């Protein structure tokens, strides 16, 4: 109860970058797994796609939630909501950007 306000504030501020970070960790790990033959490339490509879509969905949810919290809030809460919203949008751009090289490579090889 006592820490709920603090946790909510820091979650709003950091959720976007954390989603980006989680996506980054997964798309970084997948080529390494492919390099040691841990799983078929086709399976890893599906994991890559699903992870990207999942993270984008999370970022979109976060942005909408933050946007809804904008108007009636206190000034400091509006600040956090604005940061959360734009942070989620920035994370979405970065996620698409860092997922793209794998898609381009896949397309060049003729898809799945």
């Amino acid at each position, binding site marked *: 109860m*006592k*820490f709920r*306000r*603090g946790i909510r*504030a*820091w979650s709003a*501020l*950091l959720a*976007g*970058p*954390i989603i*980006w*970070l989680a996506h*980054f960790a997964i*798309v*970084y790990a*997948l*080529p*390494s797994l*492919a*390099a*040691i033959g841990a799983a078929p490339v086709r399976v890893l490509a599906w994991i890559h796609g699903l992870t990207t879509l999942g993270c984008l969905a999370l970022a979109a949810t976060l942005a909408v939630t933050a946007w809804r919290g904008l108007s009636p*809030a*206190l*000034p*400091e*809460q*509006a*600040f*956090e909501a*604005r*940061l959360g919203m*734009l*942070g989620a949008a*920035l994370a979405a*751009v*970065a996620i698409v*950007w*860092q997922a*793209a*090289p*794998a898609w*381009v*490579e896949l397309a060049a090889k003729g898809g799945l």
Partner: protein
Amino acid sequence: MSAPPEGSETGFDPAFYDRFPTKGRRPKGEVEALEEIWCAPKGWQWITVINNNYVGVYYLGAAMLFFVLAGVLALLMRTQLALPLNGVLSQETYNQVFTMHGTVMMFLFAVQAVEALGVLLLPQMLGARDLPFPRLSAYAFWAYLIGGLAFFCSLFFGLAPDGGWFMYPPLTSTTYSPGINADFWLLGIGFIEISAIAGAIEIIVGILKTRAPGMTLDKLPIFAWAMLVFAGMIIIAFPSVILATTLLELERALGWPFFDATRGGDPLLWQHLFWFFGHPEVYIIFLPAAGAMSTMVSTVSRTPLVAHWMVVLAFLATGFISFGVWAHHMFTTGLPGASIGVFSAASMAVSLPAGVQVFSWIATVASGKMRFNTPGLFVLGSLLIFVMGGLTGVMAAMVPFDWQAHDTYFIVAHLHYVLIGGMVFPLFAAIYYWTPMVSSRALSERLGRWVFGLMFTGMHLAFLPMHLSGLMGMPRRVWTYAPGRDLEWPNLISSLGAAVFAVAVLIWIIDMVRSFRPFGASAGNVFDGGGLEWLPSELYSTRSIPVVRSLYPLWDQKNLARDVVAGRYFLPGAPTGGRETLVTSPVNAEPQHLLPMPTPSGWHVWAAVFTAGFFLLLTVQAYTASVVSGVLAIGCVMRWCWFLDHPLPQAKVDVGAGLELPTYVSGPSSTGWWAMVITLIVAGMVMAMSVFSYIFLWSRSSQAWSAPIDFAPGLAAAGLCAGGVGLVWLGNRALVRPGQWGPRLATLLTVGSALLLSIAWWLDMAAWRTTGLAPDLSAQGAIVHTLLAWQGVFVAISVLMAAYVALRWLFGHVAAGRPATVQLVGLFLGYVGAQGLVVVGLPRLFATVAS
């Protein structure tokens, strides 16, 4: 009981702030008491002083000393390269000089200078009397100064490292770098990083817990935001270089083959670990400078920073994304194509938040009325230079281009544009801007313009031609070049530029000698800044701690300075009769309690001296003396801690307008709890990077890793670790229960917990010894024994801490009313138990998978 107000963090009602400024006169003697308590040092006290007004100036002064020393090395290099086949420096000396130039600039100047700026400015900006752990700041400073000077002096004995500032193995292995030159780097830098981490802990807790009431996150000064992200990045990034240097030193000293490919190691592991630290390091340096720029640009433009909240977001985003770009330094090492693609994309994505900051600054300049004074000129110069460096950075983020430019002078030009534009120019702007806050005289505007003009010209003369020489194929780190390859003119111009830059620095030194007069009255708010740091202040900081209602309180809160000086806000006197500051909540900055602050003593200085002695003596292989020095350092730290956790006679005091706050708290409300949690995050990051190293070496091994593992001791060790965590948890609960047995039981359970953890570690170690897996024969053996050794160190510290609790109990210092020490030791032991589970589980898990 009424419900807490909406949005409140602690149940505090913000309507209370309406009582300020208070009416009427304050009692006589309050100011005199503050002056006496926070008095200036005399004699030896100049060394033992801990007030940020002194330590911050010392710290910044030391950082600038290293800037000048590393600059002299740069001049030597440019003299050598001014002409082809020049003979000013020998090849060996040149290698030492360029290694020391990079190392000193990155480790002893850049990080430390911005940290020093934080120590100096943050208390005043946040409205605190001082940062929460002033002795820790002072310890960090002395450790840095002693370690840094000893490290630099290695150059005069021909013992300086010569493997480049990133010290890649196998070049730095004992085969190719015999002698102790590389050891100076590995132990010296590891030691100095500890000092940087100590400073970062201080800064995080200071920003989160010692802000003026009402300074909610949206009113937190932009510089403080930058410093918060900066310190957080240090906590995450620096453990990686600590692990890397430890592993390489273990390989050099004991032959454990982490990076030796012939015994299952991989030199690329070093590059991953180093650059996981090394690239965020660039942003670690840049972010505080960007925070300072954002502060100064609004003052010199006489308007609030445009899109302040977006700049905050840019800082946060930069902090995160910078951890996803380390491998762009490794594009030429043969990484898988898909990995390269991810890192290239992330490297380009970093330009988004950087762009937000730059456009915000440009918009602020465009929307305000710019004053072209010295700080303003440096701000504009920085903008231009940083953007140029950023653009070449985006070029280098593209893999095909990087393959061509890698290890050429193009990269030297790029990194100097980024670092000089992103850090050096903002730092000089900051020095000219904030000098009137700490000195009775401002620096000369006339000389300042000369400094800027010469520095700006010299910088471009020195580094612009390097783009060309790089594209013409001149590699980095060469001590000379052959004539007739069109490299003569670019190099001569670069050398002339370096000389012009040096003249600028010389004029700045003259200006400092003429005008910088710290530790007394301040010159005042000569630039009309809007932050709290421009309130009239003395050695105790401001007379009273104001309620903050705006991002620019001095611009927006009428009569603020007058009311603060009249003591009409929080803490107008010294209610406990000692040094103290107000502790507030991390999000809303609601008043929580009063923190008694320490007074100067010599223990932190001795602790720094002996810590430095431990590392330096280890470097020269004087092992017995090193151990003695280490033991003395531990003794000093324990004596220093003995002063802590002593409740005051006054359980609660009036901090202003009738608000009574406790003078002793424990748990998450206390600053000590936060410091311990952050310290454990550092330890956890070292463990996380160790796990990464384990998996990396396992995945890169050409032979299957296996060992005949007996699972029974592992299970027993895991059970003991869990038991240790359980005991310490019970001990913490026992202490706060009513009854006279609580302290005794808590002490016994804490000691019991340390005992269980020790037995668990010994069982695990014995189990591995029986397998015959030797640490010097294979990478598997090396990394398993590293995990065991790391856990062993933590177990040893746990035993020390438990003994410390037992000693405090003997002296009657363990009681239900003062649970902080037992709680913090409990946190540590709990972490060690959890870490023990990882150390027991990870190698067995991989052995099972392998089999």
